């Protein structure tokens, strides 16, 4: 009897803690969204580069299709290709300067003050990052979709693809967070973290399929790129939206979950070691 009451109490306590945490970090996400909406024109301004990139790539693909004299290339029509590029660029160009922020907080010592707050430093930053990224993602999607509508007209998405896209995109954003936050923490040991962030970003763009679906790569590069975690960030979500296939969707989800789990474990290990190096002095 006593054991049952104790267990119920523990479950109630855990639920309440989880509920309060969700409320707390939910509030951080809302504040972050509000902060970024306050500078919405600046975000629109940034989306102009997306217009340039999608325009150039759509011109390139039009020329390639025309030079080949075909309407389908590696399973993609020109319309599907342009919508794929919009989906991939929308995710790629919504990345905020997370590594730089973490790097500066570590170097300036501001991290010591943030650690004293009644919230986890990692989850607080995740909530802030998510709010910022969601605003950028939404605006990029609006701008990119308008451009794609003008260039190639309406897309041929399936309902399954539209419903699955938010889930795989959210997981992609989480994988990005784990990677860039971890790189930012390297400021505890190295003089310079922007180089690591740049290389990770370029590998994500090139091997992750921002310029073209991975199907166009020759073998064995295609298989290598598909097996690497970078493909779960851009190629996986974009292909899910444009060409939804249940046989590919389930393996993609597994690949994303495994990447996220392994990445999170590495991040937490790095974080625990890094936190031991923080010295807090009075004054």
């Amino acid at each position, binding site marked *: 009897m006593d054991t049952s009451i104790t267990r119920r109490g523990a479950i109630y306590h855990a639920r309440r803690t989880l509920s309060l945490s969700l409320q707390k970090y939910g509030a951080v996400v809302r504040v972050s969204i509000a902060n970024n909406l306050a500078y919405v024109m600046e975000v629109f301004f940034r989306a102009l580069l997306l217009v*340039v990139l999608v325009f150039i790539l759509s011109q390139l693909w039009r020329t390639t299709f025309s030079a080949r004299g075909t309407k389908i290339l590696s399973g993609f029509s020109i319309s599907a290709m342009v919508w794929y590029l919009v989906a991939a660029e929308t995710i790629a160009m919504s990345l905020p300067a997370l590594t730089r922020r973490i790097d500066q907080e570590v170097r300036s010592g501001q991290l010591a003050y943030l650690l004293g707050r009644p919230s986890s430093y990692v989850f607080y930053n995740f909530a802030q990052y998510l709010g910022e990224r969601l605003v950028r993602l939404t605006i990029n999607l609006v701008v990119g979709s308008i451009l794609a509508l003008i260039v190639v007209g309406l897309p041929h998405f399936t309902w399954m693809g539209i419903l699955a896209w938010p889930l795989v995109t959210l997981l992609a954003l989480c994988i990005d967070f784990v990677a860039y936050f971890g790189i930012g923490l390297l400021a505890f040991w190295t*003089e*310079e973290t922007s*180089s*690591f962030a740049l290389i990770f970003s370029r590998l994500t763009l090139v091997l992750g399929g921002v*310029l073209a679906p991975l199907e166009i790569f020759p073998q064995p590069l295609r298989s290598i790129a598909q097996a690497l975690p970078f493909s779960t960030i851009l190629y996986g979500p974009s292909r899910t939206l444009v060409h939804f296939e249940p046989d590919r969707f389930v393996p993609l989800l597994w690949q994303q979950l495994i990447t996220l789990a392994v990445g999170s474990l590495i991040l937490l290990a790095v974080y625990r070691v890094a936190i031991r190096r923080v010295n807090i002095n009075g004054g």
Partner: protein
Amino acid sequence: MSLIKNCIRTLRFIGAYLVANLQAAMEYRAAFIAQVITMIANDSLWLFFWWTYFRQFPLVHGWQSTNIVVIWAVAACGFGIGMAVFGNTPRLAALIMNGGLDAYLGMPRNVLLHVCITASDPSAWGDIMFAIGAFLLILRPDPLHFALFLLLALQAALIFAAFLVIFGSLAFFLGNTEGLAQQMLGALTTFSTYPMNIFTGVVRLLLFTVVPAGFVSFVPLQLLQRFSWPLLAGMTGFTLLFAAIAAGIFQLGLKRYESGNLLGMQN
């Protein structure tokens, strides 16, 4: 004679700042080396992708897969030299907005040149090394072609710097244009690394005027493939004209500049 003396003095002035900026970057030797290596890796990754792409999907109109190496080498070298020598140009709009030009106005040197050369982007050396390495190793040019490549890269560097000066100087008239300058630089570098064959009509016209990517990649490619004196004269003429327009807009804007009464020193 005095013109030549002035040119030599200006080059020595630029050289002195270049050496000082390089020495400052080398103070953080590990970070500097990391940035250079990262930039070489970054450029190589892009080139590898496009090399693979154009080998698989060759374009028409006489396009060869080695052309992408020429385009990337000239654009990367031009951008690298531009950011290594005139590395302060991306900050021009912010300096104008914050009254940061005060420190340069009392100096005996040309204000615009002085502002532009006081900073250098360490990662730009990675771009330069990548470009020269890719050009020499992949294309194996003769000495004349290599000399022409360097000349064209220098002109591309001037175009990049002038482009940033133009959009940075708009801050004199429109308020903070730092974001606009960054976006436009992104557009110029992006357009510069793709074949011009894929653009037609108004876009092509824009790429030879407002966003002069055609003079950063297309014209140098033509010159390196089939050299002609009139085309080189056209390229040089455009570069000088573009630089003169940038200097003119800056001088025009400088008349509207209001000091920020900012206490500080040039660093």
